[in-house]
Protein backbone atom coordinates (compact mmCIF):
# COMPACT_ATOMS: atom_id res chain seq x y z
CA UNK A 1 0.00 0.00 0.00
CA UNK A 2 1.47 3.33 -1.02
CA UNK A 3 0.97 6.29 1.24
CA UNK A 4 -1.23 9.12 0.19
CA UNK A 5 1.75 11.36 -0.37
CA UNK A 6 3.06 8.87 -2.91
CA UNK A 7 -0.14 8.94 -4.91
CA UNK A 8 -1.05 11.45 -7.53
CA UNK A 9 -2.69 14.44 -5.92
CA UNK A 10 -4.27 15.55 -9.15
CA UNK A 11 -7.71 14.20 -8.18
CA UNK A 12 -7.74 16.39 -5.08
CA UNK A 13 -7.55 19.60 -7.02
CA UNK A 14 -10.74 21.12 -8.27
CA UNK A 15 -10.89 22.65 -11.74
CA UNK A 16 -13.48 25.08 -12.97
CA UNK A 17 -15.76 23.59 -15.63
CA UNK A 18 -18.50 25.93 -16.87
CA UNK A 19 -18.80 27.66 -13.52
CA UNK A 20 -18.71 24.45 -11.48
CA UNK A 21 -15.73 23.25 -9.43
CA UNK A 22 -15.15 19.67 -10.53
CA UNK A 23 -12.97 17.06 -8.90
CA UNK A 24 -12.12 14.10 -11.07
CA UNK A 25 -11.52 10.83 -9.22
CA UNK A 26 -11.86 8.59 -12.25
CA UNK A 27 -8.23 7.50 -12.24
CA UNK A 28 -6.04 6.01 -9.55
CA UNK A 29 -6.59 4.47 -6.18
CA UNK A 30 -8.93 5.91 -3.62
CA UNK A 31 -8.05 6.02 0.04
CA UNK A 32 -9.78 7.66 3.02
CA UNK A 33 -7.62 10.73 2.44
CA UNK A 34 -9.11 11.26 -1.00
CA UNK A 35 -12.64 10.93 0.33
CA UNK A 36 -12.24 13.42 3.18
CA UNK A 37 -10.35 15.74 0.84
CA UNK A 38 -13.26 15.77 -1.59
CA UNK A 39 -15.74 16.31 1.25
CA UNK A 40 -13.69 19.26 2.52
CA UNK A 41 -13.52 20.79 -0.96
CA UNK A 42 -17.27 20.38 -1.37
CA UNK A 43 -17.82 21.97 2.03
CA UNK A 44 -15.64 24.91 1.04
CA UNK A 45 -17.57 25.39 -2.20
CA UNK A 46 -20.91 25.15 -0.41
CA UNK A 47 -19.87 27.82 2.09
CA UNK A 48 -18.99 30.13 -0.79
CA UNK A 49 -22.07 29.34 -2.86
CA UNK A 50 -20.05 27.76 -5.65
CA UNK A 51 -21.38 24.68 -7.43
CA UNK A 52 -19.31 21.53 -6.90
CA UNK A 53 -19.33 18.25 -8.78
CA UNK A 54 -17.50 14.96 -8.30
CA UNK A 55 -16.67 12.56 -11.08
CA UNK A 56 -15.84 8.98 -10.07
CA UNK A 57 -15.00 6.05 -12.31
CA UNK A 58 -17.19 2.92 -12.19
CA UNK A 59 -14.56 0.85 -10.42
CA UNK A 60 -14.35 3.37 -7.55
CA UNK A 61 -18.06 4.03 -7.16
CA UNK A 62 -18.78 1.21 -4.78
CA UNK A 63 -16.04 2.14 -2.33
CA UNK A 64 -16.87 5.84 -2.34
CA UNK A 65 -20.57 5.11 -1.86
CA UNK A 66 -19.93 2.59 0.88
CA UNK A 67 -17.92 5.21 2.73
CA UNK A 68 -20.92 7.56 2.56
CA UNK A 69 -19.20 10.13 0.36
CA UNK A 70 -22.32 10.41 -1.78
CA UNK A 71 -24.51 11.10 1.23
CA UNK A 72 -22.11 13.78 2.48
CA UNK A 73 -21.94 15.43 -0.94
CA UNK A 74 -25.72 15.39 -1.26
CA UNK A 75 -26.05 17.11 2.11
CA UNK A 76 -23.67 19.79 0.85
CA UNK A 77 -25.68 20.24 -2.34
CA UNK A 78 -22.84 18.91 -4.49
CA UNK A 79 -23.35 17.04 -7.74
CA UNK A 80 -22.27 13.40 -8.01
CA UNK A 81 -23.32 10.07 -9.46
CA UNK A 82 -22.65 7.91 -6.42
CA UNK A 83 -25.58 5.59 -5.78
CA UNK A 84 -26.93 5.03 -2.28
CA UNK A 85 -25.75 1.72 -0.87
CA UNK A 86 -27.80 -0.62 1.29
CA UNK A 87 -26.74 -0.82 4.89
CA UNK A 88 -24.88 -4.01 5.58
CA UNK A 89 -22.00 -5.28 7.64
CA UNK A 90 -18.97 -3.04 7.04
CA UNK A 91 -16.39 -4.33 9.43
CA UNK A 92 -13.53 -2.91 7.41
CA UNK A 93 -15.00 0.58 7.18
CA UNK A 94 -14.12 1.83 10.61
CA UNK A 95 -15.52 5.28 10.03
CA UNK A 96 -17.38 6.51 6.98
CA UNK A 97 -16.80 10.07 5.79
CA UNK A 98 -18.12 12.09 8.72
CA UNK A 99 -18.12 15.81 9.49
CA UNK A 100 -16.35 16.88 12.67
CA UNK A 101 -18.94 19.21 14.11
CA UNK A 102 -17.86 19.59 17.73
CA UNK A 103 -15.11 18.57 20.14
CA UNK A 104 -17.38 16.10 21.91
CA UNK A 105 -18.53 14.70 18.58
CA UNK A 106 -14.91 14.27 17.52
CA UNK A 107 -14.11 12.39 20.72
CA UNK A 108 -17.13 10.14 20.22
CA UNK A 109 -16.09 9.28 16.66
CA UNK A 110 -12.54 8.55 17.76
CA UNK A 111 -13.84 6.32 20.55
CA UNK A 112 -15.95 4.37 18.05
CA UNK A 113 -12.91 3.73 15.87
CA UNK A 114 -10.87 2.77 18.89
CA UNK A 115 -13.51 0.30 20.06
CA UNK A 116 -13.59 -1.44 16.67
CA UNK A 117 -9.83 -2.06 16.73
CA UNK A 118 -9.47 -2.74 20.44
CA UNK A 119 -9.87 -6.51 20.36
CA UNK A 120 -7.36 -6.92 17.55
CA UNK A 121 -4.73 -4.51 18.85
CA UNK A 122 -5.19 -2.47 22.04
CA UNK A 123 -2.08 -0.35 21.51
CA UNK A 124 -3.05 0.59 17.98
CA UNK A 125 -6.58 1.31 19.20
CA UNK A 126 -5.24 3.81 21.71
CA UNK A 127 -3.04 5.42 19.08
CA UNK A 128 -5.97 5.79 16.71
CA UNK A 129 -8.01 7.49 19.43
CA UNK A 130 -5.17 9.89 20.19
CA UNK A 131 -4.47 10.68 16.54
CA UNK A 132 -8.09 11.19 15.49
CA UNK A 133 -8.86 13.43 18.43
CA UNK A 134 -5.69 15.51 17.97
CA UNK A 135 -6.37 15.97 14.26
CA UNK A 136 -10.08 16.64 14.64
CA UNK A 137 -9.71 19.05 17.53
CA UNK A 138 -6.93 20.86 15.64
CA UNK A 139 -9.33 21.53 12.80
CA UNK A 140 -11.89 22.97 15.19
CA UNK A 141 -9.32 25.11 16.97
CA UNK A 142 -7.26 26.39 14.05
CA UNK A 143 -8.95 25.92 10.69
CA UNK A 144 -12.10 27.95 11.20
CA UNK A 145 -14.23 25.51 9.24
CA UNK A 146 -15.74 22.03 9.37
CA UNK A 147 -13.39 19.12 8.86
CA UNK A 148 -14.10 15.55 7.82
CA UNK A 149 -12.73 12.24 9.06
CA UNK A 150 -12.71 8.68 7.74
CA UNK A 151 -10.96 5.45 8.63
CA UNK A 152 -10.69 2.03 7.08
CA UNK A 153 -9.15 -1.32 7.89
CA UNK A 154 -7.20 -3.21 5.28
CA UNK A 155 -7.57 -6.67 6.69
CA UNK A 156 -5.25 -8.56 4.39
CA UNK A 157 -2.51 -6.06 5.06
CA UNK A 158 -3.43 -5.71 8.71
CA UNK A 159 -3.36 -1.96 8.44
CA UNK A 160 -5.62 0.89 9.38
CA UNK A 161 -5.83 4.06 7.35
CA UNK A 162 -7.31 7.16 8.93
CA UNK A 163 -7.64 10.65 7.50
CA UNK A 164 -8.81 14.12 8.43
CA UNK A 165 -9.12 17.05 6.04
CA UNK A 166 -10.36 20.60 6.04
CA UNK A 167 -10.36 23.52 3.63
CA UNK A 168 -9.87 26.20 6.23
CA UNK A 169 -6.99 28.58 6.74
CA UNK A 170 -4.30 26.06 5.84
CA UNK A 171 -0.95 25.74 7.56
CA UNK A 172 0.62 28.60 5.60
CA UNK A 173 -2.21 30.85 6.74
CA UNK A 174 -2.01 29.86 10.37
CA UNK A 175 1.80 29.83 10.62
CA UNK A 176 2.59 32.97 8.63
CA UNK A 177 3.05 34.86 11.87
CA UNK A 178 5.68 32.27 12.85
CA UNK A 179 7.70 33.06 9.75
CA UNK A 180 6.27 30.64 7.21
CA UNK A 181 6.40 32.25 3.79
CA UNK A 182 5.12 29.29 1.81
CA UNK A 183 3.40 25.92 2.19
CA UNK A 184 6.63 23.93 2.51
CA UNK A 185 7.93 26.10 5.33
CA UNK A 186 4.57 25.93 7.08
CA UNK A 187 4.50 22.13 6.90
CA UNK A 188 8.05 21.92 8.24
CA UNK A 189 7.20 24.22 11.14
CA UNK A 190 4.06 22.23 11.96
CA UNK A 191 5.96 18.95 12.00
CA UNK A 192 8.56 20.53 14.29
CA UNK A 193 5.89 21.46 16.78
CA UNK A 194 5.52 25.17 16.07
CA UNK A 195 2.08 26.55 16.86
CA UNK A 196 0.44 29.82 15.90
CA UNK A 197 -0.61 30.27 19.52
CA UNK A 198 1.50 31.92 22.20
CA UNK A 199 -0.06 29.84 24.96
CA UNK A 200 2.42 27.61 26.80
CA UNK A 201 3.36 24.14 25.59
CA UNK A 202 1.49 24.24 22.28
CA UNK A 203 2.18 22.50 18.97
CA UNK A 204 2.63 19.03 20.39
CA UNK A 205 -0.08 17.12 18.56
CA UNK A 206 1.39 16.55 15.13
CA UNK A 207 4.89 15.86 16.43
CA UNK A 208 3.56 13.34 18.92
CA UNK A 209 1.43 11.69 16.25
CA UNK A 210 4.45 11.15 14.01
CA UNK A 211 6.23 9.39 16.85
CA UNK A 212 3.12 7.39 17.70
CA UNK A 213 2.43 6.01 14.23
CA UNK A 214 6.14 5.38 13.73
CA UNK A 215 6.19 3.21 16.81
CA UNK A 216 3.34 1.22 15.28
CA UNK A 217 5.21 0.70 12.01
CA UNK A 218 3.17 3.28 10.18
CA UNK A 219 3.51 6.67 8.57
CA UNK A 220 1.82 10.02 8.26
CA UNK A 221 1.12 11.91 5.04
CA UNK A 222 0.56 15.64 5.39
CA UNK A 223 -0.61 17.79 2.54
CA UNK A 224 -1.21 21.50 2.83
CA UNK A 225 -1.50 23.74 -0.19
CA UNK A 226 1.30 22.77 -2.54
CA UNK A 227 3.45 21.03 0.07
CA UNK A 228 3.51 17.31 0.68
CA UNK A 229 5.32 15.58 3.54
CA UNK A 230 5.65 11.88 4.29
CA UNK A 231 6.82 11.12 7.81
CA UNK A 232 8.07 7.58 8.22
CA UNK A 233 10.74 5.56 9.91
CA UNK A 234 13.46 7.12 7.80
CA UNK A 235 12.46 10.67 8.72
CA UNK A 236 10.39 13.21 6.84
CA UNK A 237 10.47 13.54 3.08
CA UNK A 238 9.08 16.64 1.41
CA UNK A 239 8.01 17.38 -2.11
CA UNK A 240 5.91 19.87 -3.98
CA UNK A 241 2.61 19.14 -5.62
CA UNK A 242 1.86 20.59 -9.02
CA UNK A 243 -1.81 20.60 -8.10
CA UNK A 244 -2.23 22.16 -4.66
CA UNK A 245 -4.89 21.01 -2.25
CA UNK A 246 -6.84 24.00 -1.01
CA UNK A 247 -6.62 23.11 2.66
CA UNK A 248 -4.89 20.65 4.96
CA UNK A 249 -5.11 16.89 4.76
CA UNK A 250 -3.50 14.31 7.01
CA UNK A 251 -3.64 10.58 6.42
CA UNK A 252 -2.11 8.12 8.82
CA UNK A 253 -1.29 4.46 8.33
CA UNK A 254 -0.92 2.16 11.30
CA UNK A 255 0.03 -1.50 11.15
CA UNK A 256 -1.84 -3.85 13.44
CA UNK A 257 -0.14 -6.44 15.59
CA UNK A 258 3.49 -5.99 14.67
CA UNK A 259 4.50 -3.79 17.58
CA UNK A 260 3.47 -6.33 20.20
CA UNK A 261 6.65 -8.22 19.33
CA UNK A 262 8.84 -5.15 19.82
CA UNK A 263 10.05 -4.01 23.22
CA UNK A 264 8.98 -0.46 23.97
CA UNK A 265 12.45 1.03 24.03
CA UNK A 266 13.08 -0.17 20.49
CA UNK A 267 9.91 1.29 19.10
CA UNK A 268 9.99 4.95 19.94
CA UNK A 269 12.37 7.78 19.29
CA UNK A 270 12.21 11.05 17.48
CA UNK A 271 12.47 11.20 13.77
CA UNK A 272 14.92 13.50 12.16
CA UNK A 273 14.03 15.85 9.34
CA UNK A 274 15.84 14.89 6.17
Amino acid at each position, binding site marked *: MRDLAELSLTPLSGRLVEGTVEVDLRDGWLQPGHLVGVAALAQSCASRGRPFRLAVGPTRTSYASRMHLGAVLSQLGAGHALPPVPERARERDLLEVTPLVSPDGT*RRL*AALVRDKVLAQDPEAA*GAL*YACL*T*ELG*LNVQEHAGTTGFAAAQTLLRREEVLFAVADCGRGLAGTLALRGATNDREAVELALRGVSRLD*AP*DRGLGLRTMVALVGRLGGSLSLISGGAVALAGRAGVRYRESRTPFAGTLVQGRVRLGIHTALP*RQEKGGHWSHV
Partner: protein
Amino acid sequence: MSEPSPTRTLVLPYLVAGRDLADAMVDPLEPVAGTRFVVDCRPLATGSVSFASQLVVRVLDQGGAGALVLVGGPQEFVEHVCGAAERLGVADRLTVTASDLAGVASA
Protein backbone atom coordinates in the same frame (compact mmCIF):
# COMPACT_ATOMS: atom_id res chain seq x y z
CA MET B 1 3.08 23.00 62.58
CA SER B 2 1.71 24.28 59.32
CA GLU B 3 -1.74 23.35 58.10
CA PRO B 4 -1.74 20.53 55.53
CA SER B 5 -2.42 21.67 51.97
CA PRO B 6 -6.03 21.27 50.89
CA THR B 7 -6.50 18.43 48.43
CA ARG B 8 -8.35 18.47 45.12
CA THR B 9 -9.08 15.11 43.51
CA LEU B 10 -9.82 14.53 39.84
CA VAL B 11 -10.76 11.05 38.65
CA LEU B 12 -10.13 10.67 34.95
CA PRO B 13 -12.56 8.68 32.80
CA TYR B 14 -11.65 5.90 30.38
CA LEU B 15 -10.64 8.19 27.52
CA VAL B 16 -9.50 11.80 27.56
CA ALA B 17 -8.39 14.07 24.72
CA GLY B 18 -8.15 17.75 24.00
CA ARG B 19 -7.31 20.90 25.91
CA ASP B 20 -10.96 21.88 26.15
CA LEU B 21 -11.71 18.71 28.09
CA ALA B 22 -8.86 19.34 30.53
CA ASP B 23 -10.20 22.86 31.08
CA ALA B 24 -13.70 21.53 31.65
CA MET B 25 -12.45 19.04 34.24
CA VAL B 26 -10.24 21.48 36.15
CA ASP B 27 -12.67 24.41 36.12
CA PRO B 28 -14.98 23.00 38.84
CA LEU B 29 -11.97 22.38 41.09
CA GLU B 30 -10.72 25.97 41.02
CA PRO B 31 -9.03 27.57 42.81
CA VAL B 32 -6.12 25.15 42.78
CA ALA B 33 -3.37 27.49 43.98
CA GLY B 34 -1.53 25.99 46.92
CA THR B 35 -3.46 22.72 46.81
CA ARG B 36 -2.29 19.16 46.52
CA PHE B 37 -3.96 18.21 43.22
CA VAL B 38 -4.41 14.46 42.95
CA VAL B 39 -5.31 12.94 39.56
CA ASP B 40 -6.55 9.38 39.70
CA CYS B 41 -5.51 7.98 36.32
CA ARG B 42 -6.32 4.35 37.12
CA PRO B 43 -9.56 4.24 35.08
CA LEU B 44 -7.78 5.78 32.10
CA ALA B 45 -7.09 3.69 29.00
CA THR B 46 -5.80 6.43 26.68
CA GLY B 47 -5.05 10.11 27.18
CA SER B 48 -3.86 12.51 24.51
CA VAL B 49 -0.76 14.66 24.74
CA SER B 50 -2.83 17.84 24.48
CA PHE B 51 -5.00 16.85 27.42
CA ALA B 52 -1.92 16.00 29.48
CA SER B 53 -0.25 19.27 28.59
CA GLN B 54 -3.28 21.38 29.44
CA LEU B 55 -3.69 19.55 32.74
CA VAL B 56 -0.17 20.58 33.73
CA VAL B 57 -0.70 24.12 32.46
CA ARG B 58 -3.91 24.57 34.42
CA VAL B 59 -2.81 22.89 37.64
CA LEU B 60 0.87 23.71 38.01
CA ASP B 61 1.89 26.38 35.51
CA GLN B 62 -1.05 28.78 35.65
CA GLY B 63 -2.93 27.29 38.57
CA GLY B 64 -0.06 27.39 41.04
CA ALA B 65 -0.91 24.16 42.81
CA GLY B 66 1.62 23.09 45.41
CA ALA B 67 1.77 19.59 43.98
CA LEU B 68 0.31 17.52 41.15
CA VAL B 69 0.12 13.83 42.05
CA LEU B 70 -0.62 11.25 39.37
CA VAL B 71 -1.96 7.95 40.61
CA GLY B 72 -1.57 5.04 38.20
CA GLY B 73 -2.45 5.42 34.54
CA PRO B 74 -1.02 4.21 31.23
CA GLN B 75 2.70 4.70 30.80
CA GLU B 76 2.24 6.81 27.69
CA PHE B 77 -0.07 9.27 29.45
CA VAL B 78 2.28 9.55 32.41
CA GLU B 79 5.09 10.30 29.96
CA HIS B 80 2.97 13.02 28.35
CA VAL B 81 2.38 14.64 31.75
CA CYS B 82 6.04 14.36 32.77
CA GLY B 83 7.12 15.83 29.43
CA ALA B 84 4.80 18.80 29.83
CA ALA B 85 6.01 19.40 33.37
CA GLU B 86 9.63 19.37 32.20
CA ARG B 87 8.97 21.77 29.32
CA LEU B 88 7.07 24.13 31.58
CA GLY B 89 9.70 24.01 34.32
CA VAL B 90 7.36 22.67 37.00
CA ALA B 91 8.56 19.08 37.24
CA ASP B 92 9.70 19.64 40.83
CA ARG B 93 6.04 19.80 41.86
CA LEU B 94 4.98 16.63 39.99
CA THR B 95 4.78 13.26 41.70
CA VAL B 96 3.95 10.02 39.95
CA THR B 97 2.86 7.07 42.03
CA ALA B 98 1.38 3.69 41.40
CA SER B 99 0.06 3.48 44.94
CA ASP B 100 -3.57 3.57 45.93
CA LEU B 101 -5.46 6.84 46.07
CA ALA B 102 -6.22 6.69 49.78
CA GLY B 103 -2.55 6.43 50.63
CA VAL B 104 -1.67 9.35 48.38
CA ALA B 105 -4.46 11.60 49.62
CA SER B 106 -3.47 11.15 53.22
CA ALA B 107 0.25 11.47 52.66
